[in-house]
């Protein structure tokens, strides 16, 4: 049974309710065992979003608020209706330029909310309905040094990982043996990894040797409604036995998820121990690591048969898509979509996550706007200032307005690198900013 602490409520779209809801958020965070700093950030996030959304709500329709305290994270969700949504101040770039932003009082609140949260997501739920989710992570101490186990011996077995100490040790071992790019950020603070497993956010299989010592790890998490993102296989045995343990981990992973609700599994950071025959390589991402150009294959496989989909496609992307689908033997009906003639709002909104250690940033479009090309360029510049070289952008080909942005992306210096079958509602195109830093 979930140990989550949950509160859900519906409030009138009135600013007077923002403060009590924020107080509730603080109580929930305290009850979930979070420290003062996280509690304050969560409270601020909830209060500012409530204030802003109260002003936006159409016809005074109520605001539905959900607050969840998990082991590793606090999460707030706001379901609301708004006719002309513009959340430009939530762009990470707005946060970076706080000092110069010519913001209204309302936008400043939004800016504060965006800054207090570790990340947020905006989902369009159809018509004028939206769901905004904001997350505040628990702070964890860095990993303590660990030594590789010695004398690992077959037979090797696998089972689903749940023991906190074993998970902590396995994550720390992976961080020692494998480069940062291949390890999830939760491995760097191994206390976080077992909490994510306990919360159901991450699942993993562990390999054990004849004496029950940890011999390998493979972890996965949902990355969309249809997709699971995996990391590994991480193998701690001698090279002669690595292939066997990697095979056990991969088979255990696939057998575990085979009858779940997901259609695909994928990874950009699979290790060199991956049995390649079990997967397809969709394309390659590039990055500079310690001055060297490195290529990272995007590996993928379906969990069930793919008998075709329809996707939207802008003219600039059509040749790339047709060639890719032919190479992958994927049956697709390609439906044309033109670049927008005019845009209904001024400010676009991009969701951004980044990881300095892995030299890696990801962009997702939340709202289109007149400034999309400029907004992309501003995000690229912001990441570059932070020393991040690898910048990805995801385009869901199920959403016509997203597919229509191909021209904006090309103009902003992005190039299509791979198509991820069923990676979104339908297929996703992974774009990478072409000029590596």
């Amino acid at each position, binding site marked *: 049974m979930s140990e989550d602490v949950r509160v859900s409520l*519906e409030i009138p779209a009135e600013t007077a309710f923002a403060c009590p809801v924020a107080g509730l958020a603080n109580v929930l965070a305290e009850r979930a065992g979070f420290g003062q700093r996280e509690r304050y950030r969560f409270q601020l996030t909830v209060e500012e979003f409530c204030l802003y959304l109260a002003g936006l709500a159409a016809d005074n329709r109520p605001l539905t608020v959900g607050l969840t305290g998990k082991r590793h994270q606090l999460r707030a969700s706001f379901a609301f209706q708004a006719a002309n949504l513009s959340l430009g101040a939530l762009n990470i770039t707005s946060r970076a330029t706080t000092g110069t932003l010519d913001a209204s009082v309302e936008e400043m609140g939004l800016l504060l909310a965006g800054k207090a949260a570790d990340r947020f997501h905006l989902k369009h739920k159809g018509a004028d309905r939206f769901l905004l989710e904001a997350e505040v992570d628990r702070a964890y101490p860095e990993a303590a040094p660990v030594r590789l186990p010695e004398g690992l011996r077959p037979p090797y077995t696998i089972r689903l990982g749940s023991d906190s100490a074993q998970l902590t040790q396995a994550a720390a071992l992976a961080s020692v043996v494998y480069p940062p790019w291949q390890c999830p950020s939760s491995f760097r603070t191994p206390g976080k990894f077992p909490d994510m497993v306990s919360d159901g956010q991450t699942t993993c299989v562990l390999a054990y040797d004849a004496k029950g010592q940890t011999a390998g790890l493979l972890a996965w998490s949902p990355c969309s409604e249809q997709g699971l993102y995996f990391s590994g296989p991480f193998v701690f045995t001698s090279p002669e036995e690595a292939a066997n343990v990697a095979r056990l981990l*991969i088979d255990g992973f*696939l057998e575990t998820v085979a009858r779940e609700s997901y259609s695909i599994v994928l990874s950009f950071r699979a290790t060199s121990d991956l049995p390649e025959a079990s997967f397809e390589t969709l394309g390659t991402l590039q990055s500079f690591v310690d001055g060297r150009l490195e290529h990272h294959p995007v590996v993928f*496989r379906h969990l*069930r*048969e793919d008998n*075709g989909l329809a996707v939207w496609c802008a003219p600039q992307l059509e040749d790339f898509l047709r060639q890719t689908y032919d190479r992958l033997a994927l049956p697709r009906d390609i439906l044309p979509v033109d670049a927008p003639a005019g845009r209904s709002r001024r400010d676009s909104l991009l969701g951004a996550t980044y990881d300095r250690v892995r030299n890696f940033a990801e962009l997702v479009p939340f709202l289109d706007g007149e400034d999309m090309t400029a907004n992309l360029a501003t995000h690229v510049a912001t990441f570059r200032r932070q020393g991040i070289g690898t910048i990805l952008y995801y385009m869901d080909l199920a959403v016509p307005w997203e597919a229509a942005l191909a021209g904006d992306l090309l103009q902003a210096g992005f190039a299509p690198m791979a198509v991820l079958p069923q990676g979104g509602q339908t297929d996703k195109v992974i774009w990478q900013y072409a000029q590596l830093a």
Partner: protein
Amino acid sequence: MRSLLDRVPDYVRSFERYVPSRPDPVLMRQFGVAHLFRLNNNENALGPPPLAQEAIAAFPPARGAIYPSGDAYDLRQALAAKFGKSPEQFLVGNGSCEVISSVIRAFCGPGDAIVTADKTFAVYEWVAKFSGIEARLVPLKHQALSPEAMLAAVTERTKIVFVCNPNNPTGSWWNRASLERFLAALDDRALVVLDEAYREFLDDPDFPDGLEVMERHANVLVFRTFSKMYGLAGFRIGYLGGSLEAVDIVRRTHIAYSVNSPGQIAAMAALADDAGHIVATRRMVDEAKSFLRDLFDSLGLEYVSGAGNFLMVRTPLSDTLLYRKLMREGVMVRTMTGFRYPNWIRVSLAQQPAMEAFAKALTKVLDHA
């Protein structure tokens, strides 16, 4: 602003709907082929027996306006006569899947569990899960159901043990002695469903006859189908046999009128004309099995070949990728990841042209892999 999904139980919310394959014309257009060999569903490539074909052709269209017999009265009489039972010992459903659902509804309630294998026909597990019943899954041992492991998985909450005999997709089966030992050790602690969908493909005196076993064990129910050997998959007719008491219980949760009239008529005709059809089908299956074994040996591929009109082979590339590449060559197989056999495919055994088309396509795809 509650969503529809918020209104459904957790066990439904977390369940993924099954997506069947699309109709042939759609698939052929999408994969750019002029012909498609369907080797994915273990259908009988010879079709129904001749008398059944005649019965289907003779079905008067005007009878389409009339409801079928709500409990397949005549078909149950025919089954009773064929197997020397009472008609009340049979219950006919819209394929075995409906009967599985009726049995789980009849015997399981909140907090109960079923036991089945992890690598077997998926519908037992699916129906249990979307009904809120725990499915305890037992790993296969040497590609076969393990009686010991299944017994060990039975608890006081277990209401039904599903034994697919022969097992789909491995073709392994329990012989008479294994089944009797299992039933004795189980000691009536749970109902046992013997799913004998593929039993007619076997001609081995050591294979247990479920309809005989159920006479000695009141806790045994037997599933059989007209979809495999009898070539009537398009009509969806499966049936259940059991003691009078057991069938009476299941009938309470079973939807009446679910089996269509032409299907009932065709099934009766098939029963009356099965001897030659079974011989011909077994011959076709044996020839195809021999052909594929030789093919896989020559390609150095590992395979599992047991009873039934199918064979399973481990592929040197992702099974889902191989599926798409074979589709482009006009051959449709079943990927086995969903059966928890990642990178295996299952191939239905059919006539020589289909087998040769599969062999040619597979060789071509592997040559270019």
